[in-house]
């Protein structure tokens, strides 16, 4: 009996271990799938990104997460850095001026981030000093991936280069280094007389440096830079910082009287990349701002912010009361990304829309709600009876391709028998783009 229970115990532990391994492998697989679409990260120094991060729950989760991330990054990095060439051959190819710039760029990265020999450093230094502007820009950026202390000084010296392209490359490299002194130098560029392209690059890259200094530089930049492309880049970068820190600035931009419509729209849409804490603010703007163009942008941005998902009730209330059809259209688009949408309440609103774009956007929201479950059979039947024929007609009409495809998307989302039948019809229409999109929705 004891032996039997011992064996049972071993099998139980084996099972648990197997489960842990399976979970780890599963998480790795899913992570790899994300990266398989988006590409492979470069190696080199630690990633610097805005601290809009959400901590995984629990110490085990963090441990597993960090380990998985390191493992996946290492594998992906190795894949990217792998070449069939020796280090000497990479160096020779980089030095060959007939090599295409895109290849020299990758080689510069390899030389700076992986090979890192004295010969590699010398080659990069020489290219930085005497190469054509495009190559110098590429090398400057690659040097940001290196650990060579002198790279920092080389890049700082390039901030006064006459060629805008070279200065922009230096900014990209410096942003990878990102210490406070470097950040201060980049911040100084924002309000300087440097070319607009240089200042926009500085504003953009400051948004990728996760530090108080970068945040302060951007806030200071907002005060001195007039409205235009540079301020737009500053606002976009600020949008990547946690909303708790940026709320006063965004509130002033959106609700204050100093800024034009374009800046306000830009500010609201920049918050798609902010923390979940920006979601209530976006809802407030969508509900209360006097300008429908701003409400429209806020409604759309709320659907993309990481805090989206739980706003179904609020968005439905807004859509029911909103007088502007373009705002309602974006509210419907945001509803697609919410959970527990009351399709029974949404469906009559959508059916009552006269504007085709709003109707199609609403149909997508209804269809997503149907797919989410918890919808009455009566709503499903009404969707099939009223909206499916209309979506079928729109997808076949001579309207814009954008609207026709969105009608197809609504049919794909719904998953009802009538919507599948409509997709089957559309898969045979003359327009190959609509036909293909419909066919992709069929099993």
């Amino acid at each position: 009996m004891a032996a039997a229970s011992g064996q049972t115990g071993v099998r139980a532990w084996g099972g648990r271990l197997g489960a842990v391994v399976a979970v780890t492998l599963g998480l790795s697989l899913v992570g790899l799938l994300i990266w398989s679409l988006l590409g492979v990260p470069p190696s080199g120094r630690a990633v610097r990104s805005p601290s809009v991060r959400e901590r995984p729950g629990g110490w085990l989760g963090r441990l597993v997460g960090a380990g998985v991330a390191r493992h996946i990054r290492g594998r992906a990095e190795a894949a990217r850095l792998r070449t069939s060439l020796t280090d000497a051959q990479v160096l020779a190819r980089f030095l060959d001026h007939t090599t295409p710039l895109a290849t020299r760029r990758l080689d510069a990265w390899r030389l700076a981030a992986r090979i890192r020999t004295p010969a590699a450093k010398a080659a990069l230094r020489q290219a930085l000093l005497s190469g054509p502007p495009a190559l110098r820009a590429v090398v400057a950026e690659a040097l940001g991936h290196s650990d060579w202390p002198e790279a920092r000084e080389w890049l700082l010296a390039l901030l006064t280069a006459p060629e805008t392209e070279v200065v922009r490359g230096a900014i990209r490299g410096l942003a990878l280094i990102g210490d406070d002194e470097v950040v201060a130098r980049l911040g100084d560029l924002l309000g300087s007389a440097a070319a607009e392209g240089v200042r926009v690059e500085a504003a953009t890259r400051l948004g990728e440096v996760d530090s108080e200094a970068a945040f302060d530089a951007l806030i200071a930049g907002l005060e001195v830079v007039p409205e235009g492309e540079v301020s737009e880049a500053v606002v976009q970068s600020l949008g990547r910082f946690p909303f708790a820190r940026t709320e006063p600035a965004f509130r002033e931009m959106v609700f204050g009287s100093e800024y034009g419509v374009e800046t306000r729209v830009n500010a609201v849409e920049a918050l798609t990349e902010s923390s979940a804490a920006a979601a209530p603010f976006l809802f407030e703007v969508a509900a209360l701002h006097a300008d429908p163009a701003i409400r429209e942008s806020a409604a759309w941005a709320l659907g993309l912010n990481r805090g989206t998902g739980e706003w179904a009730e609020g968005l439905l209330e807004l859509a029911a009361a909103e007088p502007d059809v373009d705002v309602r259209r974006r509210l419907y688009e945001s509803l697609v990304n919410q959970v527990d949408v009351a399709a029974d309440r949404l469906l009559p609103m959508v059916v009552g829309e006269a504007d085709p774009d709003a109707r199609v956007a609403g149909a997508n929201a209804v269809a997503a709600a149907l797919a989410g479950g918890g919808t009455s059979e009566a709503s499903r039947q009404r969707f099939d009876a009223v909206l499916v024929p209309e979506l079928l007609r729109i997808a076949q009409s001579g309207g814009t391709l954008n609207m026709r495809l969105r009608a197809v998307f609504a049919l794909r989302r719904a998953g009802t028998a009538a919507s599948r039948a409509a997709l089957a019809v559309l898969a045979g229409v003359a327009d190959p783009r609509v036909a293909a999109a419909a066919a992709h929705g069929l099993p």
Partner: protein
Amino acid sequence: MSNTRENMVVRGTASRWPSRPGLWCFALALLLLPAPAWAAVTWKIKITPAHSGLVVWATSSPVASGQLATSGSISFNENAMVDLTFTPNDGFERVAVYKNTTDWTAYLDVNGHYQFGPVGGAHTILAVFAEKTPTGTFGVSFPADPPASLASVYDLTGHYEGVSPTPHQRAYSFDLAQDESGKIMGLGTIAGMPSNQADGKISVAGSVKTQQDEPRASLVSTCTGTRDGEDASCRATASGPVDLQDIGDGLLGAEGEVDYTARVAGVPFQDRDVPVAIPASPDISRAWSVAFTIAKRTIGSPTRPVSKLYGSAELILPNGDHVQFAERPVSYSRRQGYNLTFTRGQNITAGRPDTKSKIMARKMTLTETGDGWEVQGGDLMYWFLGQRGKGRLSDFTQVGR
């Protein structure tokens, strides 16, 4: 007997020289009687506005010729024949010719010439020219191979599929639709990824905007689901430039660096400047064109007619939409050309107003060709599909209309 004093005087004065009274009569006759054939006639020639045209002249008596580039006068003998040719300078056209107050325009031949004479009196000839105003339709299109300074505007609507270029190759397949604001909606799959959609698809949303004269796409994809009983929901954001290039194997695609953040089952992943090369949809397009139409209309009463210029525009977007901008008054000057601004058009394809598209031409100058006008210089600024750009009109391709 006739030996009177008078007789003696007559005999005495029957000499070779005219008498004094005769001399006076002759002088008086010279003054009063019409001038003989060799007397000078002077015509004033006025050209208005200054430096707008040329008057080429030739006279038969004396035989002489010349030209007047500014107002002046010509002199010739009475009864001479006088040929005048009225030629506008570049950028000008002949409007009217007056002889004193009589409109002589209709008598000119096709070359702007008339022969006056035999001329007897002094006259004033007024030659009226006016700046030529280019009218008609002038079109430009975005070049197939644009210079680096010219920002592209992309329509990303279409289907994207491929296999990820990593050792763990995963098939992906997405359909995207981009609207007039550059906002994107899409559905698709990544092999092995869970989905909360009925058809197993992953939902995508995002936008395309211009940054540093380069279109940049930002996308957010979400999925919910489980794998092996564990939460495997995900949210991934990625942004990167949209720039069609040859990415190898004869494929056109977007090549550049993307930034992304992802959270998979609570595990965060993020990185930036990740080099990627994603095959583009065959439907992706950045081709667009604009045609400006300028017409001159006469308004006002019949007794007080006024000529005014009106301009309209038609924009054909990269997604094939036609946006029509209604006619509005415009003005022209020879040095500055046209300054045109068109907003708030009508999307004919969608059948709705378009408040997102805008096009401006600044200092658009035109040059006359054999059968019309061609855009010569100036700048063009454009906003549509959520993106924008500006460039010199000479960098665009002329479109014949």
